[in-house]
């Protein structure tokens, strides 16, 4: 296990049992959060004609929804810290459902902005954060696998929602479809009801700190008792200091080395993360490939993504990768960058198919590990605050990335500069992650060694104290 702040949870996560039901629930919640805004774009053309607005005005619905979802992160984190995951997810599900139902009665485009954009986006934020947080509370040893499986919800639901939306649209028109989608999204409440708060009273099976102190179990228990008391006192002090702040959000995260590394790298990375996905089909059409084959490229990409995410989770769980999972993440980000830099060399349809496959692998790897490494760095305690802060800060690059890339294409008239730019924007953070994580791991190892030295000293003192007490009582009984 990584030496990062992982073991001060105060209880042993189940790592199985009901945890897998929670993974399924997170799968659904995360899937809806990411796939729902993308799948709504199918209705845009019809709505655009109905309300007689321009394409950019209708595209705002999607942008407002995404912005709401990311900006609602901190609000979501505060609520999760306060009330736990389950109520927040259920409220989120009801919010998105109400938003869609209201939108189906909308008479102007502003109605759609407010209903789908603001309320819907906020509801999705209330789904995303708690789903990620609760995995950290249920899993410790198998956490990368659980994260990978849960994040696979996004491509699977996108794959399902896209044709379903088309079918609904053909049968019921956009108003009827919004009404029915409102009821489908209500299934997030079912997912929320599965997110039972984890049982924190299961006793610690962590080995006692003083391993070589005594041979008898009783002696070991007593010898470890003073050191345990010392630890619980420390925990109490920490928890008192943190409890006031953690009720809302944890600003001390900004002094956390790992968190800062993650934040800086991610902000740069997200500028170039989504743009290649958005422009894959237009690039293919630009090269002369017909519309259906271009759309098929996206399907290949989504299919590869679907399988790579759990696979990455599985690989991340192995005993070789898990302790140094930050390097695995850095590798995934750099691999993304290399993929994009090599894309302009792909010629013809089969070249693009190969690119779609490699890009699918890269994208899936990064997505599967994205929140796992954050959990690994800050620990499950502070994860909900961390993810809230990260999403609101990432809001800007996520929203600005595709339009900026689009501007690049417009200025140069060629797509290869877009891919070079995205490649660089991912390779640089990748290398940054490698270097900074090497430094971070060194520092964490040092701190771990210092802590162990302190523990050994306190254990020895406690054992000596115990032995001198025993001697005293023995002398007293003798004498």
């Amino acid at each position, binding site marked *: 296990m990584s030496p990062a702040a992982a073991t001060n949870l105060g209880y042993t996560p189940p790592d199985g049992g009901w945890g897998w039901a929670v993974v399924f629930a997170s799968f659904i919640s995360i899937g809806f959060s990411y796939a729902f805004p993308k799948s709504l774009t199918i209705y845009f053309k019809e709505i655009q*004609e109905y309300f007689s607005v321009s394409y950019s005005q209708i595209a705002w619905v999607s942008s407002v929804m995404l912005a709401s979802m990311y900006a609602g992160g901190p609000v979501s984190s505060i609520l999760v810290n306060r009330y736990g995951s389950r109520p927040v997810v259920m409220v989120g599900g009801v919010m998105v459902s109400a938003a869609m139902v209201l939108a*189906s009665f909308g008479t102007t485009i502003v109605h759609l902005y407010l209903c789908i954009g603001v309320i819907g986006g906020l509801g999705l934020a209330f789904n995303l954060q708690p789903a990620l947080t609760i995995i950290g509370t249920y899993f410790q040893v198998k956490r990368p696998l659980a994260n990978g499986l849960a994040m696979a919800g996004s491509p699977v639901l996108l794959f399902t929602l896209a044709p379903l939306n088309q079918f609904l649209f*053909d049968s*019921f*028109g956009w*108003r*009827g*479809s919004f*009404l*029915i989608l*409102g*009821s*489908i999204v*209500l*299934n997030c*409440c*079912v997912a929320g*009801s*599965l997110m*039972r708060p984890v*049982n924190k*009273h*299961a*006793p610690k*099976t962590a080995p006692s700190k003083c391993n070589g102190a005594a041979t008898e*179990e009783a002696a070991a*228990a007593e010898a470890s008792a003073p050191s345990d008391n010392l630890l619980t006192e420390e925990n109490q002090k920490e928890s008192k200091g943190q409890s006031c702040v953690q009720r809302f959000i944890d600003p001390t995260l900004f002094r956390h080395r790992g968190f800062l590394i993650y934040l800086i790298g991610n902000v740069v990375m997200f500028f170039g993360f989504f743009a290649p996905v958005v422009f894959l089909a237009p690039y293919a059409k630009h090269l002369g490939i017909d519309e259906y084959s271009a759309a098929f490229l996206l399907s290949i990409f989504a299919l590869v993504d679907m399988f790579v995410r759990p696979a990455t989770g599985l690989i991340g769980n192995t005993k070789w990768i898990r302790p140094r999972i930050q390097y695995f993440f850095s590798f995934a980000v750099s691999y993304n960058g290399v993929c994009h830099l090599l894309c302009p060399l792909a010629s013809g349809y089969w070249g693009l198919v190969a690119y779609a496959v490699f890009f699918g692998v890269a994208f899936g790897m990064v997505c599967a590990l994205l929140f796992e490494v954050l959990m690994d760095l800050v620990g499950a305690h502070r994860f909900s605050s961390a993810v809230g802060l990260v999403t609101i800060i990432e809001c800007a690059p996520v929203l600005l990335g595709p339009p900026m890339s689009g501007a690049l294409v417009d200025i140069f008239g060629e797509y290869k500069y877009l891919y070079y730019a995205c490649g660089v924007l991912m390779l640089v953070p990748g290398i940054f992650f490698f270097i900074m994580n090497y430094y971070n791991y060194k520092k964490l190892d040092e701190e771990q060694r210092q802590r162990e030295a302190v523990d050994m000293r306190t254990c020895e003192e406690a054992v000596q104290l115990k032995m001198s007490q025993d001697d005293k009582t023995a002398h007293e009984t003798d004498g």
Partner: protein
Amino acid sequence: MKLLWAVSALLLCCWRADASTAPNIITDPVEVINQTTAILSCNLTESSLPIKGSQWLHNGKVIESSKSTDSAPFTVLRLDKITYSSSGQYECVFLTEPEVKQTIEVKTLPHVAAYKHSEHGNEKDKGVMVCVSHGYPLPTDWTWFKEEDGASTPIINGTSDKYEIKSTPNKTILTINDLSIENDIGDYMCSGTNELGTASDKIHLRVRSRLAALWPFLGIVAEVIILVTIIFIYEKRRKPDEVNDDDDSGSAPLKSNSNANHKDKNVRQRNSN
């Protein structure tokens, strides 16, 4: 007087000289009307200017395969299969200083196509049907018909609030307001007429009841409520069991669960015996 005669004679000579040296292109045929194949030819006469080459343009765009650097005053373009997409204005251009060109018009019947052959509308809402046309020349007249019991009744714009027709040469839009399920379901025909003839296409209109989407919605909401209730009831039933387990494992501080507790006890007893 003599000066006036001299000047007029000079002007007449110049004019005649201009007329005699003005380049003239003879086209064959002058116009192509409703033919499946054609051979367009241009013959440049009465020109002493050097010809650097020739090319053909279709609706203003150069046909790459027709570019030639041949200095012959004669150029030919073959049209093997004339459809609505190959109709339009063809220009033969001789690359002289200055360029000279002549236009040959290739006309076909209009090609009328519906955007979608099956349209949907909601009850009491409006239904929109669109037909577009391609080709040359574009229709000058558009008419809409409603097919009822085998007969086509024309829909006339402006007679009632129900029907609105907006037409441009290449597109026509029929909007039906306040759709009703009894009256408005059926086939509608759009027909476009140009100087050569008429073409038409058919659209089927379906009207959905207002409550059509309500039943699936209620069904799924019911399913969600049932599932949530089942999950909560299952959890309430399990909770008392879990609390008992906690007490058991709490009493033996170093054992992780009650099963292991019993096993160890048995082991100890056997060992002591």
